[in-house]
């Protein structure tokens, strides 16, 4: 079935970026284009999601070559959900950028690169071809390099060097894995691979291949002990950029990890054990780090790591409940983490710093904004019935079911530290009086009302999305449940792509 709709979000971002490249010196039209593009892409993503939700998996054979001969794009519920979430996050960040990103950065290609990044993410979620996935990964990586370094401050560059080295290493692992995969199957189409890998007699070769994907995607997802790039770099770029990074980049790694380890390789006992160990260690690592940091974005960076452990654990448990929980967590995390980094940016706008020691008094001065932020913070912790709560039930249930007490304990400890850290953050940043001997640089107050609104609006959009996820958990559970089914039974996927061959 020819359905160009699948790649529509990709194309929208591509053409938005191209249009912006043609207007390099005009920041306001770029802004408008960006928001319009994101809005359009959001609507398209929503339509795609609805279509897939009601009608099942959709495929599109690029260049009209049947799978497995050409590159195929597949919108199953997992990918279309990811695209939808990406679109929501992108829309929010795009609006925030209008105020949150300086003109100088806009003049040097902030917006086009941002759209290329989103395009890359969408492409990566939708592609059904492993090498094409690599290309999308590279689009994402190079865009993130550029966004990370845009501005060229010393900490930015330092972060970028580490970020770059480890991400390129990850790509190397990924590409090596693709090479081996082609060597043993002669194919690149993921559905085709799924069938062909099952037929390979020498399982140890398959397991070896899996390791390369594990390490490659593991680095991207920032799991223990591959996570170092994340806390080295996420505190450096402008907040709008950090928001995209925090919300989406590691999730792409997780998405790929899930795709690969459900469609291509089915984890054996060893792999499951590895995943569980990784998950526990990741949670603890993130928790320890978040506990001791004082810069908001550094804290958030470690919290990202911590919560990635939750999701990876779901993969390690590999039961339906676990996958459901992991997917739900992923959905929740994308929205909340994006929002938190935007909030960090807002805080910086309000006070000129992100150091908890120097912050304070925001609650007294901006009570309503603070309460809005509180919702997001407590969503992150998983205070019921906010969004982070539901997946934890599934994760704990799955962990207890498979007698994985270490993981259960890690989830509890991770949740507890998150709670503590968030409460402390609230108390330090919002409750505490403004620190007396610190000069408060409030760049928010002098803004025009419209621009203030543009800064708050995206946070509000994302917060309401979080609320929607939390209060309408049944719907999200339905979606996650179907996604988990897709992961466990891949026949619909392969037959949708290959036609019942």
């Amino acid at each position: 079935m020819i359905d160009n709709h699948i790649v529509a979000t990709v194309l929208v971002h591509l053409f938005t970026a191209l249009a912006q490249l043609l207007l390099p010196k005009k920041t306001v039209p770029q802004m408008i284009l960006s928001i319009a593009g994101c809005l359009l892409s959001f609507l398209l993503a929503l339509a795609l999601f609805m279509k897939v939700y009601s009608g099942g998996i959709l495929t599109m054979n690029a260049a009209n070559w049947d799978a497995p001969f050409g590159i195929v794009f597949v919108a199953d519920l997992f990918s279309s959900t990811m695209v939808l979430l990406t679109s929501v996050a992108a829309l929010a960040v795009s609006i925030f950028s209008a105020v949150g990103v300086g003109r100088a950065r806009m003049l040097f290609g902030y917006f086009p690169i941002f759209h290329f990044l989103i395009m890359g993410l969408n492409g990566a979620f939708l592609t059904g071809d492993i090498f094409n996935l690599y290309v999308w990964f590279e689009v994402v990586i190079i865009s993130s390099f550029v966004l990370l370094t845009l501005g060229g401050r010393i900490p930015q560059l330092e972060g970028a060097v580490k970020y770059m080295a480890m991400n390129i290493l990850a790509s190397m692992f990924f590409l090596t894995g693709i090479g081996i995969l082609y060597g043993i199957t002669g194919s690149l189409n993921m559905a085709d691979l799924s069938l062909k890998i099952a037929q390979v007699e020498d399982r140890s070769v398959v397991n070896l291949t899996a390791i390369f994907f594990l390490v490659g995607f593991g680095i991207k997802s920032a799991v223990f002990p591959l996570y170092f790039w994340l806390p080295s770099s996420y505190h450096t770029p402008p907040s709008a950029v950090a928001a995209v990074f925090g919300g989406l980049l590691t999730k792409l790694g997780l998405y790929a990890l899930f795709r690969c380890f459900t469609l291509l390789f089915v984890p054996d006992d060893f792999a499951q054990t590895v995943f569980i160990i990784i998950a526990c260690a990741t949670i603890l690592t993130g928790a320890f780090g978040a506990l001791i940091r004082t810069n908001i974005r550094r804290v958030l960076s470690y919290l990202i790591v911590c919560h990635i452990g939750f999701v990876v654990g779901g993969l390690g448990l590999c039961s339906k409940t676990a996958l459901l929980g992991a997917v739900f967590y992923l959905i929740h995390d994308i929205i909340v983490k994006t929002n938190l980094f935007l909030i960090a940016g807002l805080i910086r706008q309000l006070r000129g710093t992100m150091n908890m020691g120097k912050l304070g008094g925001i609650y007294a001065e901006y009570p309503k904004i603070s309460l809005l932020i509180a919702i997001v913070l407590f969503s992150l912790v998983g205070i019921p019935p906010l969004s982070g709560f539901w997946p934890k039930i599934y994760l704990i249930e799955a962990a207890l079911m498979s007698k994985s007490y270490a993981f259960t304990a890690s989830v509890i400890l991770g949740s507890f530290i998150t709670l503590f850290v968030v409460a402390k953050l609230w108390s330090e940043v919002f409750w505490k009086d403004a620190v007396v001997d610190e000069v408060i640089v409030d760049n928010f107050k002098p803004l025009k009302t419209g621009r203030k609104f543009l800064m708050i609006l995206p946070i509000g959009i994302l917060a309401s999305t979080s609320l929607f996820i939390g209060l309408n958990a049944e719907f999200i559970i339905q979606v996650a449940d179907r996604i988990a089914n897709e992961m466990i039974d891949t026949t619909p996927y392969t037959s949708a792509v290959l036609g019942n061959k």
Partner: protein
Amino acid sequence: MKSPILQSASRYLLPILLLFSVFLLLRGHYYPGGGFVGGLVAAIAFVLHSFAFGTAESMKMLKYKPSAIIPVGLIVAAIAMFLPVLFGLPVMTGLWIEEPIPVVGMIGSALLFDIGVYLVVIGVVLTILFTISLETH
């Protein structure tokens, strides 16, 4: 480091390289070559020129900033990619003019796409090299 010998050499090498790059571009469908290599060779032609005459001189010769070529190339390629959608086909599907044209052979969206690639590569390589060169020297 202006060398008259290099300068005069590059004066005749530049057109040769450019011609050759177009040659590579056009026959890519049949022989080794294509948009990438073509673009790289064309870029090298200008790089050579910049070695001989200085980057500022090369920029002057190009008239447009090399970075302006990038979006043009991308748009050409994107059009080639998007064109089939207008005919109700999946993106990227090859569209062909029925009759082959002498020298080039079959003309189709693939060639348009290759031209886009060619332009992008020129733009990219020159942007990178010229930016660095202008900043440093």
